[in-house]
């Protein structure tokens, strides 16, 4: 795949197929869905971060005019009854169910306790205040290091630490401990001339999608349940709802509406099973909407973390050893992304001796959810800052030290895998050659920083069917919700195969009854895997069309060739027909052509990024201004370069927000005090320069066009790059996120 290929469609910038719908307000999102007889649901949430539910009395609310139904955890199947069937899995089912509606304990403020369906949203809201819940309030534990203390209040009486395959005897908030080891770290540190170790703390941050969660459910007397909702994966919703409600998957249809952002936060279900329960109970369609406070308090953010990183290098700049200790907050139930964090932390580098310990720890905060390269941003903040410090101490250019230690094909990551062809070095080279890196950087209080990042990307299952139209266009049916232009990037791959323009493809994202299984839009997989399925479906169409041409010309299929949109006969007859013209003759040659492609590819191909940022630090106000930002990234092959740029720019800006402003601020009782877009400060266009991007293309051998996922890796480098730039500007190492004016002023005041 190393040679440059010529493409007709791939690499161009056609207008996306849902373009007009989305600029005219016609695109229908979950909250826009209407159906006759609709009831409105509202969820009652816990005011306490940690409490035992003594009793729930819904009688006053039930008597309230307009209320049609109320559900609590009592309406969910009790996972305790499933131990016989599920064994260990029953524990996970219990966690899953308890997060939907708390059964015996509430574990975070905002934890759902009950839900009401009523004839108007106002009535549902009022009825919630009439539900009497008696709580026995317990002390909360809100920070990962406190939660790990032996005398910390326990969230789960039966949770015991699983450490490297062994389960402890005593209960703990530490759900698990993992470790990756490579070489002999002690020996490596002994060989180092300089060793640097620091602690880092990062806050809880939210994906911040602008569209709140929503779900409308309809239950028919024949047992069929339909859910219209905003989700990153309709099939994943179907699976989760089936499991939580212990309901047959064949009777659930999930219709994905347009989705207003997800970034990992719309994979787990929250109100979808609740809407389903209310629909079952009332026999009416029920729509449940979250408001912004619900989103902050009741859905998964990405974890706060405590990190220690130690790295050593020789005078020549060779990193000889690296160690990391990662303690991640899982939120109320086990399952933080400490695993991926641990796998990614030193991944851009080939280091001989590595030791990484990761801890998954429960605290009284919402159960965390993925957020764009989950775990990797926290981890890289530590490692990329330390590497910068090593470079500085050794008087080596920070990009140079990255080149010297950068991972290449054949190198082994600490957690095991050996890299296929990867493009890390190329991203560093691109950054080094960019005019930004050569631009002067000497003004007072101005500074420049760099950092790199790695993300795996994933493959997983995708299905596509293609229906060929008589006019030479195709209708492409897919199951990947389109969050950022994937209708186009998937359609373009089919178009390339069939030699037709992107505009001749009509892509549709359909419900779970109408396409084969397709995993989530997440893990940077959609253009890669669903695009791959579209490629396969188009190949299927091509094969069938070749057969039709052969039939038409009465020749053997082997004698028909397809190139540049034309079928032609080789070895004999002088026949030629365009794709379009052959489409018009499908009826006479055997009927319609429908192609299908399904994949579960293993070769997702990792993505690397290297960023350069210039900042100005106002020492008098503590404000950091981003003056210039350049992001280089290996996209493998950019199917639609504009949308690749957009992914990079968006990821960078989320990383900037994480670096400078964003965090959940909790009080001692576990209330998030800043659960609004006013107080949870996400960047606006006044906080940023134009984000410059450089797409590097080192084709992924695991994809027919060389595609690598692009969505996630750009969020990883910004916090470290900015911290390194702040150091360059004012000589202060910031080790806590966000690097807010308050923290900057404190740090400046203490030197």
């Amino acid at each position, binding site marked *: 795949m190393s040679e440059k290929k010529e493409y007709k469609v791939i690499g161009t910038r056609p207008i996306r197929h849902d373009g007009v719908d989305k600029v005219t*307000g016609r695109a229908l999102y979950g909250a826009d869905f209407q159906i006759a007889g609709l009831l409105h649901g509202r969820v009652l949430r816990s005011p306490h971060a940690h409490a035992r539910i003594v009793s729930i009395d819904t009688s006053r609310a039930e008597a309230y005019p307009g209320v049609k139904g109320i559900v609590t955890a009592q309406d969910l199947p009790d996972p305790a009854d499933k131990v016989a069937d599920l064994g260990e899995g029953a524990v996970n089912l219990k966690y899953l169910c308890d997060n939907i509606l708390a059964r015996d304990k509430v574990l975070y403020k905002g934890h759902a306790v009950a839900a009401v369906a009523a004839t108007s949203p106002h009535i549902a809201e009022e009825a919630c205040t009439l539900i009497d819940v008696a709580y026995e309030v317990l002390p909360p534990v809100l920070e990962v290091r406190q939660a790990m203390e032996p005398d910390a209040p326990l969230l789960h009486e039966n949770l015991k630490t699983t450490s490297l395959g062994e389960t402890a005897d005593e209960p703990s908030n530490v759900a698990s401990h993992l470790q990756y080891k490579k070489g002999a770290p002690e020996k490596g540190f002994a060989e180092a001339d300089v060793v640097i170790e620091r602690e880092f703390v990062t806050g809880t941050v939210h994906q911040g999608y602008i569209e709140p969660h929503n779900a409308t459910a309809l239950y028919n007397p024949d047992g069929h349940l339909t859910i219209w909702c905003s989700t990153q994966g309709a099939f994943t919703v179907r699976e989760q709802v089936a499991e939580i409600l212990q309901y047959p998957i064949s009777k659930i249809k999930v219709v994905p509406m347009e989705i207003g952002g997800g970034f990992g936060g719309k994979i787990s279900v929250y109100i979808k099973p609740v809407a389903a329960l209310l629909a079952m109970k009332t026999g009416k369609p029920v729509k449940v909407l979250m408001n912004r406070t619900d989103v902050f308090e009741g859905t998964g953010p990405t974890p706060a973390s405590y990190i220690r990183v130690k790295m050593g290098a020789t005078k020549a700049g060779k990193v000889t050893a690296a160690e990391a200790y990662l303690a991640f907050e899982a939120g109320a139930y086990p399952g933080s992304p400490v695993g991926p964090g641990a796998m990614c932390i030193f991944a851009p580098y080939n280091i001989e001796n590595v030791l990484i310990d990761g801890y998954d720890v429960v605290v009284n905060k919402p159960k965390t959810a993925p957020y764009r390269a989950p775990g990797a941003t926290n981890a890289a903040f530590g490692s990329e800052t330390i590497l910068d410090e090593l470079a500085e101490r050794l008087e080596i250019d920070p990009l140079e030290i990255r080149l010297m230690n950068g991972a290449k094909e054949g190198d082994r990551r600490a957690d095991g895998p050996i890299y296929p062809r990867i493009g890390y070095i190329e991203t560093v080279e691109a950054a080094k050659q960019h005019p930004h890196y050569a631009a002067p950087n000497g003004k007072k209080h101005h500074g420049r920083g760099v950092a790199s990042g790695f993300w795996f990307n994933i493959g997983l299952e995708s299905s596509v069917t293609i229906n060929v139209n008589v006019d030479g266009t195709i209708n492409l049916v897919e199951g990947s919700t389109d969050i950022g232009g994937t209708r186009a990037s998937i359609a373009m791959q089919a178009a390339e195969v069939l030699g037709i323009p992107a505009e001749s493809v009509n892509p549709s994202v359909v419900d779970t009854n109408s396409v084969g299984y397709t995993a989530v839009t997440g893990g940077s997989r959609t253009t890669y895997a669903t695009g791959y399925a579209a490629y396969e479906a188009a190949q299927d169409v091509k094969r069938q069309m070749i057969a039709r041409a052969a039939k038409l010309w009465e020749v053997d299929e082997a004698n028909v060739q397809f190139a540049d949109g034309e079928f032609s006969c080789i070895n004999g007859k002088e026949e030629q027909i365009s794709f379009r013209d052959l489409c018009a003759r499908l009826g006479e040659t055997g009927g319609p052509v429908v192609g299908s492609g399904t994949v579960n590819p293993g070769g997702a191909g990792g993505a690397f990024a290297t960023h350069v940022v210039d900042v100005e630090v106002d020492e008098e106000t503590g404000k950091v201004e981003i003056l210039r930002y350049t992001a280089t990234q290996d996209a493998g092959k950019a199917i639609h370069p504009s949308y690749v740029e957009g992914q990079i*720019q968006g990821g960078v800006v*989320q990383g900037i927000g994480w670096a400078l402003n964003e965090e959940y601020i909790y009080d001692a009782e576990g209330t998030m005090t800043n659960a609004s877009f006013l107080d949870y400060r996400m960047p606006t266009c006044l906080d940023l320069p134009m984000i410059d991007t450089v797409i590097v293309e080192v084709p992924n051998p695991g994809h027919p066009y060389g595609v690598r996922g692009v969505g996630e890796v750009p969020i990883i480098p910004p916090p470290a790059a900015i911290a390194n730039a702040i150091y360059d500007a004012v000589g202060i190492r910031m080790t806590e996120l966000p690097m807010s004016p308050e923290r900057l002023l404190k740090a400046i005041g203490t030197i």
Partner: protein
Amino acid sequence: MAKHPVSLTVNGDEHDLLIEPRKTLLAVLRDTIGLTGTKEGCSTGDCGACTVIVEGKAVTSCMVLGVTAAGKEITTIEGLASDGALHPVQRAFIETGGYQCGFCTPGFIIAAKALLDENPARTEEEFRHALGGNICRCTGYTKILEAVMQAAEEIRTTA
């Protein structure tokens, strides 16, 4: 708590409505009139997804009561395209890739339209200030600003 008779002109069409006083203009537009192109992101006036034009000015419709908009002329995203042709801002957003998920897009387009109606000759910095009340979480704003500046250029040169 009687409902109030309220007449609104939305996208040129007159609507005579009976509105509960506590309904926001956003709820009136979405639920009562059925114009769901205007989005609700935060309900606190902080994200700008619900931006509509009232009497020539961009406002966040989640922070206005429907009853206080009585007699006003309102433009929503559904009212921008005319005679089947997209407004230059709409077209520019498509052409530059000025949106990804599309949820904040109606608010941005409306805010930009109000701005360009007032004066299309602005610097990038002025556009940034004028769009500071809209949050986009997908794009990082680069392509949004490119779209608005492209539309401004087109409006200036064809005016």
